[in-house]
């Protein structure tokens, strides 16, 4: 059973092969864009998402699977805490690096 949650949650992880931050989507895939995140509104939904995420961990697709508080108040879903919001954007001191450039900035 998932931990008790006090608000909406999304699932954050790092890809195994390059360590880039990724977000679990409702279809069970991993996206470079936090706005694509599936959001769990309660413990049962978080359990479901974590089951999917942990399967991806076991399948060696991602590591460091972490449920984090989601900010759903704006136009796009984003991690609520600055630490995880930073993962969704990239280093604030290098505007030329990370997803703040574009979701596909390395392609």
């Amino acid at each position, binding site marked *: 059973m998932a931990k008790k949650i006090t608000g909406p949650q999304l699932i954050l992880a790092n890809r195994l092969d390059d360590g880039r931050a990724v977000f679990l989507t409702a279809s069970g895939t991993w996206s470079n864009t936090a706005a694509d995140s599936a959001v769990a509104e309660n413990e049962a939904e978080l359990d479901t998402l974590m089951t999917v995420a942990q399967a991806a961990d076991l399948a060696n697709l991602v590591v460091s699977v972490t449920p984090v508080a989601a900010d759903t108040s704006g136009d796009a879903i984003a991690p*609520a805490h600055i630490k995880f919001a930073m993962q969704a954007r990239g280093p604030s001191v290098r505007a030329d690096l990370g997803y703040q450039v574009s979701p596909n900035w390395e392609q």
Partner: protein
Amino acid sequence: MYAYDTYDHAMVNARVAEFRDQVDRRMKGELTEEEFRPLRLMNGLYLQLHAYMLRVAIPYGTLSADQMRKLAHVARRYDKGYGHFTTRQNIQYNWPKLSETPDILQELADVEMHAIQTSGNCIRNVTTDQFAGAAADEVADPRPYAELIRQWSTFHPEFSFLPRKFKIAITGAAQDRAAVKWHDIGLVLKKNETGEIGFEVLAGGGMGRTPVIAKSMRDFLPVPDMLSYLEAMLRVYNEQGRRDNKYKARIKILIDAMGIEEYTRQVNAEWEKIRHVPIDVPEKEVARIKAFFAPPPLAVSADDVAEVTELANANFIFKAWLNNNAGAHKVPGHAHVTISLKPHGGIPGDASDAQMDLVADLADAYSQGEIRVSHEQNLILPHVAKKDLPALWAKLDEAGLGTANAGLLTDIIACPGLDYCALANTRSIPIAQSITERFDDLKRLMDIGPLKIKISGCINSCGHHHAGHIGILGVDRRGDENYQLLLGGSGAEDASKAAILGPGFNEVGIVDAVEKVVAVYLGEREDEESFLNAYRRLGPDVFKEAVYGTD
């Protein structure tokens, strides 16, 4: 510089091959992350916020020009075109791919570099004075001893799983530029009354959440006894250091609990058992190591060089650079030069691949092919003829590397902070940038004089805030970045712990607070009194009043 022998090459190459196999097995799923994590950490590979981070060892901060070129190549080919020089005189890459890490390590091995023991609960990279072998004030070059410690500690089977990480620093000069009193073990080279060279041994220093200044436990340890004594020190710690709580596992906690006298007694008792078994290195081997660090063939020449004086009289910025970034060399007619990696508004410690290549070329042209990294996150050309200073400065300045602020307020240490680090609570780099933008007038900086600001984005203290004349510590206050202001620390021979002045600030308020503190200093200082001495004389109240008001 030390050059690998066949054993060194074989060991490092074998480690690369081993790690390549481990990465391959991880990618195939034959190793779980739980199994793989300690293996990657043993090879300096962390997982941070945006990507993996590879920390490459630069033993005692000494690099050849060719090694620097390789670091530039790695930045260009495998990373995002830059690297970050750290307070342990190492370099970190922020974007390597796991699958490419073995190739990076093989490229590094080709120039006698590696990432071994840059993480984990083992003996980390030994740090030293960035001017070692060049400084006019040193008793002896500490690097041969640092190299002996490196060889002794690398893959030491007994000390590969210590209670916690272990950091050793060594200085050859009475003026401590290596922060030895903030280390688990600090060694200070000195001469005794008969002229013999040995070490004062200090133990139990460290930063982190429990800052402690190391205590002296032996006034004079003869050089030939160094390794057996270190072995005794490590053994007592390894056996008795706490393993139940990582926050209480450093040697500083053990020594605080048992007292330095009891720790010394136990170390001496252990040493008596082992000092006659062959741990210490035979004199012939010591001489072989020392030969790698023989002084370069610098021709003695006059310290006064007309063209240098003329340019200094004509160009204030060059004059400032000469004063701040060029220091006294042991060979007359020469200087050691600090290349500031602290351009105003820049990221402390970062260098681009092009800048690294340029520094390598300048080292070949002007500094006997030698480069150093300082724990203050700058680069050093240790052996520059004074007549070459104008040409060197012009080339550095053109590449954005000529900032004349070494040792001044804007020569800030800052950890990567929340911009990169998974442990951080707040960002550090933007605070450093804001301060350097606020204090961007070189004349004002030179009027303020020596002032060390050190910024950490969490209590782990990678930014050395406890040792800052002005220290800044980032804390998470209910999800917001908040910055505490500390005053009065020192990482030098007069080491002291900075004290928190009062409640914290947001990212704008902390810069205002620093400016108010500096204004108090300028108003209250006597004659040539430094900021630190003024703080020590005045105490915190006058600063507190200026920063927080009287209410």
